[in-house]
Structure formats: structure tokens, C-alpha cells
């Protein structure tokens, strides 16, 4: 066994817990998980069946944690996990899985398959079998502080730009602010308007907020590659920053996986509960709306539909607030089929969009989003995740569908009544 395979196997053994054991022992090969997975439904290739993506881990579990499995190993009746096999599984575990969680939602025996994939990635990454694209992101996170290599000067440049564009100052490192706003590299690079929208909204509701110069990056490449140590590095920077600035709430940006990493995995990675709240920006806006703090005027009149980012809705538990916000600023909001909890993944999450060689597969999987749009026929699509926006735009462009994609936070900000001068 090579050193890297040994490392991978050791990590896998560590992460296997009672839930995972229960799940493997409950699977009856019914195939329903495949019917929920866009990578199977749009390609018809059974190898993308979610539970199959875990086969090496299942065998390892059997061989290490069951009496029968250990007996079989002793008498030479079991197939060991090899480097080659893990290499072969890379496509299944990364390219064809966005950690969207639909499989976990439908398994009749209750298997949380996405949880298992997330754990399997720990072993895959420890054994060196993560895709190059995500490995790079992970490295840059450690060395530069951001998976895309976005450094503080770039953030400051965007801040200045936004200040000019919107005429509102962007605070940084303000101690005692109520909210600490995180950004994802995607927003900093592609959607600087998002920061402007935040500034507008915060000014409107009269809440104090700040960016943090040592922790502006929310994107957690460690989460995506499946490396807990790496994920912890990113989270601890955020925790340090939040505690140093004594903020009440940290706001996770319009990025799905950043929210999952910080809100649900963060405390477990740190080994202690947070001393501050974590909320997704949509949750924050939803709260502002409920408290009556958002005074809006006018409505979008065209036919709008909402794409639920998987990590926000199904995996994050934020399903209703975006709908309430849409109703506040849009007259003609229509839901696509399977909207809400069971919405279909854009196909680019979980690090998938960083994997160049997976592009063809992603575009094929996109057909399910295409058919949702063809059914609901919207004039524009609204969503709340920077990566979903890009993946949707790329998919729509590929299939020659003329359908603009916009961000919900920006849309809400556009309708705020200007108070005073």
C-alpha cells in the first residue's frame, strides 16, 4: 500500500461513524437515489448512482468494522481498496457530485448519502485523489487566504469602486459593529454590485456593519475538497476576526457552500460553539423584512422565478425567506416545478465548477434546469448564490436560452426607498 493510500485509508477509518455504518447496512439497492440525482437523470449512466459513488468506502467499512468483513479479508475473499480504484472514483466523487443532497432527501431507508460523500472526500483528498482544480483552490486558500487568490488590496479596490458607484462608505475593521459581512471570491471578482447592495441595505435599515481585513473570504475550499484541516483554517480566520471585532452576527454571502461550511460545520471544525450568530444574507434580509425595516417601492413587473441554491435551501434550511422577499419586490413571481426543498441543483456546486474536465458532464446535467425553465417560461431567473448565477448563465448560454439571471440581494436593494439625501 502506498503511503498516500495508507493515509487515505486511515482518514476514512476515522470518519466512519454509527450513521455511516447504519446507512451502508440499510441500503437495499433500490436505485431511487439515482432517480433524484441530476447526473444520472440527465445522462442515463448508472455509474452516477449516488450510493455507487461510495463503493470503495463501503468495502473499507465492511473490511474494517464488521466481523464478517474481517473474516472475509482473512480468508482472502474480499477485494481491497487500491490507489487505482480511488483514482477511478475521482470522477464520481467530485465531477459528478455537487453535494446537492437530493439523494439524501429521497432514500427510502433514510440514508444521508451526501453526508457520506462529504466524508469520503476526506479520504480521497488525503490520498491525493482530489481533482487538480480544487487542489489548487485549497492551496491558494492556505498560502494566499483565498481559493481564487484574491488578496486584500483587490478587496480594497472593489470597496473603493463600490463607494464611488453607490456613494456609500464601506467600513472595514470596525470594532463593535453588529454585523460582520463576509464575501466570496466570486462576488469580489464577478459581482462587486453585491457589496454595493449590502451597503445600501445596511444604510437603509440603520444597522452597523463592517468588513474584516483578515477574514473577508467566506469561500471554503476545504469543504469542497473534503479536507477538514483546511476547512478549519478558513473557519478559524473568520472566528478570530469576528471575536476580535466583537460582532454579534457574521453574515455569509450569496454563496451556498460558504454558508454550509460556516453555519453548520464551523463549530464542529473548531471544536467549540461560536460566540456569535451566523446567518446567510437572505436570512438577514428576511429578518429585516419581518421586522418591517425594509421600506420598498415599485415592483419588478416581468415574470420571475427563483432558483434555490442547494446549500441555502435543502441543505441550509433557508427556504421561505427568499420567497417572502421576492413577493415584496416582484408582482409576477412564479415557482418552477419542484421549487423549494426539492429544487434541482445548478450542477456547479461543491467544487464542481472548478473542475475543467467536468464541464461537459455539467452541461449535460444542466438539461434538468433547462426543462424547469422551459416549463415555467420566466422572463428572468433570480437566485442567491454567486456560483449558481454563473453556472446558470453558462448553461443558458450553451443551450442558447435568452434568460437573464439576477441576484436577489441586489434586486431588493434596487427597490429600497431612498431615505433622506
Amino acid at each position, binding site marked *: 500500500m502506498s503511503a498516500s493510500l495508507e493515509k487515505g485509508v486511515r482518514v476514512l477509518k476515522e470518519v466512519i461513524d454509527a450513521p455511516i455504518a447504519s446507512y451502508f447496512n440499510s441500503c437495499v439497492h433500490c436505485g431511487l437515489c439515482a432517480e433524484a440525482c441530476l447526473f444520472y437523470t440527465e445522462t442515463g449512466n448508472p455509474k452516477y448512482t449516488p450510493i455507487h459513488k461510495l463503493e470503495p468506502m463501503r468495502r473499507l467499512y465492511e473490511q474494517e468494522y464488521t466481523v464478517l468483513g474481517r473474516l472475509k479479508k482473512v480468508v482472502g475473499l474480499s477485494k481491497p481498496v487500491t490507489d487505482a480504484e480511488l483514482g477511478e472514483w475521482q470522477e464520481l466523487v467530485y465531477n459528478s457530485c455537487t453535494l446537492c443532497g437530493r439523494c439524501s432527501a429521497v432514500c427510502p431507508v433514510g440514508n444521508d448519502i451526501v453526508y457520506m460523500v462529504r466524508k469520503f472526500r476526506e479520504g480521497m483528498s488525503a490520498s491525493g485523489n482530489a481533482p487538480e482544480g480544487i487542489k489548487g483552490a485549497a492551496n491558494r486558500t492556505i498560502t494566499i487566504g483565498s481559493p481564487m487568490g484574491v488578496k486584500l488590496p483587490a478587496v480594497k479596490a472593489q470597496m473603493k469602486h463600490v463607494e464611488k458607484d453607490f456613494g456609500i462608505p464601506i467600513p472595514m475593521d470596525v470594532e463593535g459593529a453588529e454585523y460582520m459581512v463576509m464575501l466570496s471570491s466570486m462576488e469580489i471578482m464577478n459581482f462587486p454590485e453585491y457589496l454595493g447592495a449590502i451597503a445600501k441595505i445596511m444604510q437603509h435599515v440603520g444597522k452597523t456593519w463592517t468588513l474584516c481585513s483578515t477574514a473577508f473570504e467566506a469561500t471554503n475550499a476545504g469543504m469542497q475538497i473534503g479536507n477538514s484541516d483546511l476547512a478549519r483554517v478558513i473557519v478559524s480566520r473568520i472566528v478570530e476576526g469576528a471575536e476580535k471585532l466583537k460582532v454579534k452576527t457574521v453574515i455569509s454571502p450569496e454563496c451556498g457552500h460558504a454558508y454550509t461550511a460556516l453555519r453548520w460545520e464551523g463549530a464542529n471544525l473548531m471544536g467549540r460553539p461560536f460566540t456569535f450568530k451566523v446567518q446567510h444574507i437572505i436570512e438577514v434580509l428576511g429578518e429585516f423584512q419581518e421586522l418591517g425595516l425594509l421600506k420598498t417601492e415599485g415592483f419588478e413587473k416581468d415574470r420571475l422565478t427563483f432558483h434555490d441554491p442547494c446549500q441555502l435551501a435543502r441543505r441550509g434550511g433557508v427556504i421561505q425567506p427568499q420567497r417572502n422577499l421576492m413577493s415584496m419586490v416582484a408582482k409576477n413571481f412564479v415557482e418552477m416545478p419542484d421549487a423549494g426543498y426539492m429544487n434541482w441543483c445548478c450542477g456547479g456546486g461543491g467544487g464542481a*465548477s472548478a473542475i475543467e474536465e467536468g464541464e461537459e458532464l455539467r452541461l449535460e446535467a444542466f438539461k434538468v434546469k433547462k426543462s424547469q425553465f422551459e416549463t415555467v417560461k420566466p422572463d428572468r431567473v433570480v437566485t442567491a448564490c454567486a456560483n449558481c448565477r454563473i453556472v446558470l448563465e453558462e448553461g443558458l448560454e450553451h443551450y442558447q436560452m435568452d434568460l437573464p439571471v439576477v441576484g436577489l440581494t441586489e434586486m431588493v436593494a434596487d427597490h429600497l426607498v431612498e431615505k433622506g439625501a
Partner: protein
Amino acid sequence: MSITHDKEFKLALASLPVERQRQVAVAFCRRVQDLSHDVRVKSALESAGRVDITEAELLMASHAAHAARVDSFAQCGRDVGWTAQAGHFVAKAAEVCVRIAVPGENIAWEAAMQTRLARTCQTVAEGLGTENTEAREQYRILENFLQS
């Protein structure tokens, strides 16, 4: 008149009719045009620069610019190429230039903003930091434009 800061810059742009705004926007874009290697961007700007352009032609140019913008997104998790990202903002600016604008929209200001982002990406890529004089050059362009 002499323009020295963004507030008056933005107001002056807003006061122009849409077709004049489009021409100024194109002028801003020309300064950063070479930061994009996408022929669709170049052709969109060329179309936008024509005073006699029809709505149908704008629509076609729009599609081309849109495709160029979508193609040039920085992908989540990939190493950011600042040079390529400059091209992305040029495409964004070009898309603004060929938008069939509704009165009340300040497409010239939007184009100015996107081209400044393109310039910032370029200076970052060349290791020259994030400070640049694009804004001042834009004021100059507007001043000359208003006089003509």
C-alpha cells in the same frame, strides 16, 4: 466645464440623452478595449459606436457581448487570472454599451464603472497595485465630448 470628481461626473452623464450616452460609453470602452481578446467584444463596441445603429443590430450585438461576458467569468475555485478578469469587465462594459436602454438609465456611468474595474484588474495583473488614473481620463473624455 471641468470635471474633478465623481458626483458631477455621474450627474453630467445622466443629463445626456441615451444615444449620446452610448457614444461616451463607447469612448470609455475604447481605452480598455485591448484588455479583451474576444472578437465579440470588439465587434459589439464597433456596432455601438455607429451613430445610425438600429435596434435590431443592437440586439444582435447584445447577444455577442453577452456570450463574451458569460464565457469570461472567473470560475469558483480556480486561480484568478487578473488579465482575463480585465477582459471580463470589458465584456461587461461592452454589454452595457449595446443595451437597448430605457430613459432614466445611466448606461454611460455603468460603462465607466466597468471599465475602471477592467483597468484595476490590469494594473493588479502587472503588479502595479490597484491605484490608477482611469477615472481622471474618463473625466477628460467627458469634458471633450461635452464641448464637441
